[in-house]
């Protein structure tokens, strides 16, 4: 049984990687290549938040802060201190982990609305920090001249180089998350989502695990921030404000709570949509609000899961009309 599941999952990732390679090879328009690269970055963001929100059931309305910490840390390290970018990455991830840990300790004692408010608060604090700490962050005018990434002699500034880097990282993140989700820790996260009390009765150290998954999800956001900063080579506070946090939440909700592959869907939809519908950018907040409302009211399990449920229900209604309900 386990072997079969493993083989299935290997197949899945082989196909996924193949389609990435084919896409990178087939799409030559640099604009689209960059759009696809953005989707990869957003996928990492959504995936991280999904671990926290979809699996462990802890909301964060301030995830743009970690995205921003990742971006600003590497930007400051490379621009101000002339560090090589990969060292900037290490610093960004480490710093994010420490900050997330310190925030999580008091924050995750909160639940429900209060956790939402609390995380909203730190998101705002960091936004203001990015904007006002001018000496370091460049304030509202931002930081320019962030160097592109390179591996050895290979500079990844052409569209496809960066595309492959980002999507390679996406695959690795998927594998990591899938392994976590299918392990005892993943089960414990879902248990916490259902009932912290019951999870504790099983011997799950709920507060520790909540802090752990919060840090994990923040580190994913930070990684995305790093990739973003070295892709656009210029960052300003507006890329990490409140609406970005909401965008990440919306991605998770569209893709489906507790769905790893849903993160990819959510990220794609919310990247392509503004590109195709220009009204979207004017009414971004309204559209996110509507999406969140509609999904929460009609498809509380998230869009993907909701659609699957509807499909399942339709199928069982038409193909097995005489199944008896469980007594």
């Amino acid at each position, binding site marked *: 049984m386990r072997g079969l599941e493993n083989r299935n999952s290997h197949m899945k990732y082989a196909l996924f990687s193949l389609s990435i390679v084919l896409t990178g090879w087939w799409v030559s328009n640099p604009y689209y290549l960059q759009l696809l690269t953005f989707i990869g970055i957003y996928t990492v963001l959504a995936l991280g938040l999904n671990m926290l929100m979809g699996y462990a059931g802890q909301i964060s309305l301030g995830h743009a802060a970690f995205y921003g910490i990742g971006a600003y840390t590497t930007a400051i390290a490379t621009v101000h201190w002339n560090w090589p970018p990969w060292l900037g990455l290490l610093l960004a991830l480490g710093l994010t982990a420490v900050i997330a840990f310190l925030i999580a300790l008091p924050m995750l004692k909160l639940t429900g609305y209060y956790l939402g408010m609390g995380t909203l608060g730190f998101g705002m604090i960091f936004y203001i920090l990015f904007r006002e700490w001018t000496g370091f962050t460049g304030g509202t005018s931002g930081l320019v001249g962030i160097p592109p990434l390179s591996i050895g002699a290979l500079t990844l500034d052409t569209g496809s180089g960066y595309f492959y880097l980002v999507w390679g990282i996406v695959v690795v993140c998927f594998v990591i998350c899938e392994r976590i989700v299918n392990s*005892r820790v993943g089960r414990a996260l879902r248990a916490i989502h259902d009932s912290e009390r019951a999870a504790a009765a099983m011997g799950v150290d709920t507060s520790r695990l909540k802090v752990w998954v919060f840090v994990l999800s923040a580190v994913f956001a930070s990684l995305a921030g790093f990739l973003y900063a070295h892709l656009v080579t210029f960052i300003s506070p507006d890329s990490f404000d409140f609406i970005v946090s909401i965008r990440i939440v919306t991605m998770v909700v569209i893709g489906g709570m507790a769905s790893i592959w849903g993160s990819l869907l959510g990220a794609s939809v919310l990247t392509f949509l503004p590109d195709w519908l220009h009204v979207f950018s004017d009414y971004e907040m309204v559209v996110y609000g509507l999406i969140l409302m509609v999904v929460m009211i009609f498809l509380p399990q998230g869009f993907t899961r909701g659609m699957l449920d509807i499909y399942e229900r339709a199928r069982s209604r038409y193909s097995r009309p005489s199944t008896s309900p469980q007594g």
Partner: protein
Amino acid sequence: MLRIRNLKCYYGRIRAISGVSLSVREQELIALIGANGAGKSTLLQTICGLLPSWEGEIEFEKNSLHGLKPPEIVKKGISLVPEGRLLFPPMSVLDNLKLGAYLRYRQRDHENVGKDLEEVLELFPVLRERSRQAAGTLSGGEQQMLAMGRALMARPRLLLLDEPSMGLAPFLVRLILDVLLKLKERGMTVLLVEQNARAALQIADRGYVLENGQIVLEGLSSDLLADQEVKRAYLGKDYREFYDGRE
């Protein structure tokens, strides 16, 4: 095996247990009976470390449980089948069972966990049929069996059950009690909390009666079953006896 002395438990400033002492010896099946609100669940939750503020002494195998968190207590060999089952409804039956063995997976005890899973599925064959189903889709009786199976997956030496018969049809109550007897035969120690006093006392060795956070009566089950006070307060709902008395 378990010894509680002068236990007092608090919800904030409200005292729910005021000075309870009781003991459970190895391989005993002890019934703790009492009306709604007597403090039975509070007592069990305190033993498991789920209720942080209490005074007095709780010793398990001569070691104090003071200040221990639930994971440490589970590790020591105490498992709770909570009131209302507290399953994880969207998760599969199998995942619920595996969660019971959460701490053992960490100790890389995979082989034995697999064996115990087999044993639990043998004890409750219906769970095997339903193993891929979401726990929330099970019937009440099946859910209770799952809750018990999940607790057994931690391989406890002391099993605490909080009103396992609640809301179940009589034949299911019988089935659950039979399983408890079977577990006892295999060496398990059981502390059974029940409002269904008759059922609990019928299988228990000894019993305690809890009222308003205090033990008001204790003794052998057979004595308690015959006790006038107990009959009046806890067994009175049995209609047959009620009518028997009238005839």
